[in-house]
């Protein structure tokens, strides 16, 4: 059990007072941003990027891991108590969770969500411990063509399969790829899209893009919709559950984990599909048992999707650590943080930076446990956060956004770029363009170009070099299936959206990216 020894070393690194403190800060901060709809862990990590460049990579990533899991957890609190799922992954939790809360069972709903998240997150992280090194040891042998194909796969899946509209997804993706192209060509030294501006030739800093799109774009969007009819939060005490709830929850927890992890671990990511599948499964099982409380607040309908959600979040660490492929906005920004430390993400990460990787995995487990300990008693406090007036909240975010964008390079020009990108973020929200493909394009685009150039150099400029490896061909076949399958299904069966729109699906007026 080599992996377990390494994980134990990771625990040794995490369980110092200083690192535990960073883990706790990350978890609290993550829950804070997760509870508030509209701002999420991706924005929090982006805002913290400049701060962490002064720190060692290990504590920085321990904090990021805490933010990631904390954000997942915080989102479920809001969906249960307020019926406003901040992210698409929480939509299913909100369905039954809010009904439970209305029926006076908010405490049980929060408890099953918290414990389910903990169990799914722990199992998921343990699976990462075993899968990621195995995948990485295979991945070091794959060549540039396969690598390029995998990146194409990740982008296509995230863009066309996950979002509601493939067209909007691709517009966002190409915007991101274009932003990623700005600057000097690393191979030839030619300036691209720099409009003769020496500052642009230096490439646009990822921090500025992430902060501009996430923080400034969101702040402008909120400012444009400042006054909205306030909601009532359902009062809740300390979450708890009795033996009956526990007996009804453990099955959904485990099944949800089984759905969530594979979807997260595929370079497609996304928690929408597994949470939906988990919800349907639990509903069917409940019906067969004859205790169908769905539609009246069934605890199974909270336990299953919430576990699937967190298992999928854990699963996304497999492609991130083993292949350097991020599939959620938060992991994309974390990848940018790795690059900021001069660490090359990819299959070599596990062998080049073992301390960092295993400390990160150990901190995921520690953070998960901390979340459970902190959140069960603190739920009423988190609910109070929803009373913060938007002007005060976003003033704070704008302050940190401007500070972060300036601190990245100490250039006033970056603030100008920040405003431009903020306006772009606002326009994207206005026209319903998803943010995730853009940020993926910005961060993955240059890496992808590097692999493309490498593959072309090997083949001497022959395009056929791109499918010279058998694995690359397999990946392209998967891409082709992923692109065509939705069209075929739509022909054969009615649009899946007809099934997805269950009565009472809460309206989503904002999109939060993980």
């Amino acid at each position, binding site marked *: 059990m080599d992996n377990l020894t390494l994980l134990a070393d990771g625990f040794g690194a995490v369980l110092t007072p200083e690192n535990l403190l960073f883990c706790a800060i990350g978890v609290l901060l993550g829950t804070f941003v997760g509870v*508030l*709809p509209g701002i999420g862990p991706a924005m929090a990590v982006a805002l913290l990027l400049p701060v962490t460049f002064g720190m060692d990579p290990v504590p920085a990533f321990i904090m990021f891991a805490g933010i990631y899991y904390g954000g997942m957890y915080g989102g479920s609190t809001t969906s249960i108590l*307020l019926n*406003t799922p901040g992210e698409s992954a929480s939509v299913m939790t909100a369905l039954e969770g809010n009904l439970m809360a209305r029926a006076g069972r908010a405490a049980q709903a929060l408890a099953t969500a918290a414990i389910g998240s903990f169990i799914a997150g722990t199992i998921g992280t343990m699976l990462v411990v075993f899968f990621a090194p195995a995948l990485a040891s295979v991945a070091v042998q794959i060549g540039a063509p396969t690598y390029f194909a995998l990146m194409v796969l990740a982008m296509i899946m995230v863009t066309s399969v996950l979002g509601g509209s493939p067209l909007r997804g691709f517009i966002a993706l190409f915007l991101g790829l274009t932003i990623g192209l700005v600057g000097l060509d690393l191979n030839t030294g030619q300036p691209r899209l720099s409009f003769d501006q020496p500052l642009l030739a230096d490439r646009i800093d990822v921090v500025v893009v992430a902060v501009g799109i996430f923080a400034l774009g969101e702040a402008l969007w909120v400012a444009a919709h*400042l*006054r*909205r*009819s*306030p*909601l*009532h*939060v359902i009062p809740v005490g300390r979450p708890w559950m009795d033996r009956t709830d526990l007996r009804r929850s453990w099955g959904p927890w485990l099944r949800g984990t089984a759905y969530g992890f594979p979807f997260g671990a595929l370079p497609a990511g996304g928690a929408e599909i597994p949470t939906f599948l988990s919800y349907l499964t639990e509903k069917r099982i409940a019906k067969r048992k004859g205790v169908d409380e769905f539609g009246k607040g069934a605890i199974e309908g909270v336990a299953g999707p919430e576990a699937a959600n967190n298992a999928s979040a854990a699963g996304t660490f497999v492609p991130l650590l083993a292949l350097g492929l991020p599939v959620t906005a938060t992991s994309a920004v974390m990848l940018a943080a790795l690059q900021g430390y001069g660490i090359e993400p990819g299959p070599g990460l596990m062998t080049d930076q073992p301390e960092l990787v295993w400390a990160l995995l150990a901190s995921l487990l520690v953070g998960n446990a901390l979340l459970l300990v902190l959140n069960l008693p603190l739920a009423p406090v988190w609910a109070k956060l*929803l*009373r*913060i*007036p*938007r*002007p005060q909240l976003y003033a704070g975010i704008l302050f940190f956004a401007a500070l972060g964008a300036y601190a990245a390079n100490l250039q006033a020009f970056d603030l100008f770029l920040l405003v431009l990108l903020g306006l772009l973020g606002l326009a994207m929200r206005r026209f319903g363009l998803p943010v995730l493909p853009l940020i993926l394009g910005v961060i993955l685009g240059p890496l992808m170009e590097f692999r493309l150039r490498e593959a072309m150099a090997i083949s001497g400029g022959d395009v056929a070099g791109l499918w010279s490896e058998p694995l690359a061909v397999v990946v392209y076949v998967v891409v082709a299936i992923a692109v065509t399958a939705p069209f075929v299904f739509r022909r054969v069966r009615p649009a899946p959206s007809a099934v997805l729109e269950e009565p009472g699906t809460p309206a989503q007026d904002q999109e939060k990216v993980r």
Partner: protein
Amino acid sequence: MSEQAVTTIVVGWSPDDFGEAALSRAVEEARLRSGRVVVVNATRGDALVDDRYADEEQLARLTADLADTGLEVDVRRSMGGDVGDQVLDVAADVSADLVVIGLRRRSPVGKLLMGSVAQRILLGADCAVLAVKPPH
């Protein structure tokens, strides 16, 4: 009697003790003067949650309670920059003879930070303002 002659009492209401205290006093006054009551429930609408803005259920209960009094009642809800200004706007609109508000205890520092709806109404109203406190 013409419409203008009826005494109009505006009450700043919220679904809590302060709102209830103000409302019951306003109803009392309206009975004494055989006037009408205009209930204002306002919010800044800039936070996700505002417990002082009534939801449908609380509004239905309010309407039912007021129907029992047999008085002429008007319930208005609004959203804008300042809750005090919204109450004053309604008071000006219906040319109120009296504004009734619930007063909460607040420390000087708390008032400095949070501002005061009551102070805004007291200073800005053209008519008499009656401030009541809920019973302990």
